[in-house]
Structures are given as C-alpha cells and as structure tokens.
C-alpha cells in the first residue's frame, strides 16, 4: 500500500469503526500501522496448507 493510500485507509477505517483520530495523532498511528502491516505481511507471505487450523483457542 502506498504512503498516500495508507493515509486514506486510516481515514476510512477510522470512520468505519467510529474511532476519533485527531490530525495530530495520525503520523504516529501511521508509523505504527506501517510496522504492524510489515510484520503481518512477513507472516502472510509464508505458505501454509489450507487445512491449517488457527490457534485462537489454544492448548500448549
């Protein structure tokens, strides 16, 4: 996602979730989102079998 489109994305999701985001907070929110998405894509690019179950209810 490009830099400007991430700004648009933050505005759109903020509206969709009714999250008040002050203009002055946006650079920090964007910086955090860039890190989160970079790490999320690191996971996303790892191939997993279709049958893989999520571990959201987890037993070690």
């Amino acid at each position, binding site marked *: 996602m490009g830099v400007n489109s991430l700004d648009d994305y933050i505005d759109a999701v903020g509206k969709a979730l009714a999250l008040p985001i002050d203009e002055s907070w946006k650079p920090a929110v964007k910086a955090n989102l860039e890190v989160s998405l970079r790490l999320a894509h690191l*996971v996303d690019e790892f191939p997993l079998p279709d049958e893989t179950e999520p571990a959201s209810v987890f037993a070690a």
Partner: protein
Amino acid sequence: MSLPPDPGTRAVGDPLSAAGIASAVQAGKVSALEVIEATLARIAANNPVLNSFTDVTAVRARATARAIDGQIAERKNVGPLAGVPFAVKNLFDVRGLPTRAGSKINRELPPPSRDAALIERMEAAGAVLVGALNMGEYAYDFTGENVHDGPSRNPHDLTRMTGGSSGGSGAAVGGGLVPLALGSDTNGSIRVPSSFCGVFGLKPTYGRLSRARSFPFVFSLDHLGPFARTVPDLALAYDAMQGPDPDDGACANRALEPVVPLLEQDPGALRIAVAGGYFQQNVFPEATEAVARVAKALGTTRIVEIPEAARARAAAYVITTSEGASLHLERLRQRPNDFDPAVRDRLLAGAMIPAPLVDRAQKFRRWYRAQVLELFKAVDVIIAPATPCVAPKLGRTTFVLDDVELPVRAHIGIHTQPISFIGLPVVAVPVPLEPMPIGVQVIAAPWREDIVLRVAYALERTGVVSAALPRGL
C-alpha cells in the same frame, strides 16, 4: 545473595527469603505481624525512590498477619508460605481497590469485591498481600514507564528502566521490598523486568495458572506468574498457585504437579542447547556474555535453530496489537485523550489490521508450535537471551546496534516474543554482570516447569546466576 536482617526480625535471617520467613513463622521464631511491619517499613523507606508500589494495603496486611499468628498459636498448619509478604501487579483484582491496570481510565471503575484467583491461592498458602504494583499502561509496554503514575525505577540504577510491563514487580523484588511478587507476561512482561532488575521470574506454560479476575490484555497470549530472589522461592509460589480454574477458559484441567520436591534432582541427564540464529542476532555484548556463562555452567556447546523465530515474533506482534485494539475499542472511541498517547496510537493502528492477516497469524502459530514441539524431541532445554541489552536509561527511545538505530520499545522483547507465542514455560535467570544485571531464558517443552526450575536451581547453586543486592538504594 541475601540482605542483612531487619531489626526485630533477626530470627528470619534473610528478610527476603520466602522459605526462610515461612520456616521462622511456622516455628514461632518470629510472628507474621513482625514480618509484615518490617516489610511495610522497607516499603515506606524505599518506595519513594523506586516507585514500584501504587497501593500499599497495610490495614489488610496487618489483619491477615494477625489471623496467621492466631492460627499458629492454635497449632494450626498455615501453609508453606506462612507470613510471607507479596505484592501484585495492579492488573490483579484486589478486593476494595480499583484495578487500574496502569491506566487512568480503569481506576474510575468500582473496586472488585473479590481478589484475583492467584491472590486467593497465595493467601490460602499463608502468604500476606501487602500491595499493588506499578505497570505500563494496559500492559502494552516493555519499559516500565507510566505517564499516569510515573516510571518504576531500576533498583540497581535509579536512572534506568525496570522493564515492562510488570516493572513494579521487578523493582519491588529486585529492590528488596518484598520477597515475592506476581506479574503478567503476554510477550515478555515477566521476563524483561526480571532481566533488567536482576531477579528470577517464571512464565509458566500457557494455561497453567489461572488468570481469573485479572485485567486482560491479549487473551491468546496472556500468562501470569511469580518473581522471586531465589529459585526455591519461585517454586514455592508456583506450587501454591497451581490448579485448574473454571473461571479462566484457558486454564488447563491438569492435576497439581508440585515442583518443590523435585528441585534437588540432578539436571545432568538433560539435553541442553543454546538457541542459535535469530537469538544470536540483534544482541549487545552483555547478552552474549550472559548466555555464554550459563551455557558454560551447564556444560553445553550445542546449538539449535528454532525455525522461523522472526516470523513467530511478527505473528505475536500482529495478534497482540489486533486483540489489544479489540479489547479497548470502546475506550478508544470514548476516552482517547485519557490513554498514554503512545499506547493509544499503537492500539488505533492495531484496530486497522485486516482480519485475514490476524487469522493468518493464528494459523502460523499452529504451524510454528508443531515445529518447535518436534525440536523438543531432541532437546530438553533451550537457552536464549531474555533481553538484547541491560536496562536502558529511562526515557530512551532508540539504541544503536551494528551501526543501525533501532527503537528501544519494539526491540526489548524480540527474544521473549517467539517463546511466549506458543506458551512455553520459561525461567528468566539473572546473571549479575557489572554494573547492571541481565537475564537469560531457560526454556522447556509445554508443561515442563519442573525442568526449567530444576535447571535454574542448578545454575543458582553454581553461583553463575543470582539476584544481586540492589545497588541503586
């Protein structure tokens, strides 16, 4: 290492040995009330500089201690932690006290009428709650700093971080205010302050200890556990808190598996290896030195590679920020200005992670768990750094490693996150380097707290690891 006895409680010997206190109280050499008075005096003397306590429950503690003394006078068994003072991170419910969870918002909530499950279990074993401890806001923190309550301060150097988010727990035990404290660990929040404050910390297997009536952060990853100055004390507290609890949906239905009777067992037959690759990167020399000392003491030169550890850390990060945002969504809508701005901005970003990426992270977790469990067929124990560095200075936002400037907050937990991500049991053992201590993780397969505590105890007996006396007080 031990502290000199307090006046009035000389029968205890080391006033920060839980085992020593319990033994002396049970034998009638000292009263529980005398122990508590000495503890309250230490807190009053040192907390103004450490800022580890946010609440001191003196009235309750004296009442509990008097009840214990009454039971002892009647020759009743008061339990293995008789008269031992302890304190809890302020996300544990304490009846009558708002559960602030490090936040401004939650301290306005009505106080709970019942204690957290682990407090009940500690007190059922004879321990005495003396207060609640400072922490990073909503546990989304590795520094121990808090904009509402001020930072907890490192007992070995008051200008440095305690680590977070259980910073008050690390400072209170490291600073000698209490022999035992409880904290929580979602991505490293017991192991990081243990490392920075130079004490022992146990993050048990995910699902081992009940989280009932504690304020959550990330249900998928939250653990609770103890801090102590010795391994036997850590095991005493751990054993007292074990057991199933229907009030925590993730708490496993397992019988008690006491570790105290097993501590003396020789760990010589265990297969021990040092984590290579990812765990030897992004570390300062002190972390490398600490791991080398522990490996040498355990007589191992073997290296194992934990597969895809960097991706595991990334997945833990994604799940954390997303579930954390979900937990706080309504507060982000209604009270955004009452958050620590740094926490708020991370949570707002977390609310914007597309759902498929979170689901992918949970699926990766299942895959990674299978890989690491396979690894444990060939080894029993894995050694890894607890933190990449000793405690940074308070307020520091970046450090330079291999000529690259890195954000402090995000990097403090890089070695703890891939381990808690799949709920492995870990003891963080303190290596008393000068001028600052640093911790090493002793890691085993799920449900093998006995192994990590046995290895930690063997290390403690060699003298390679120990809780140093507080140098900053």
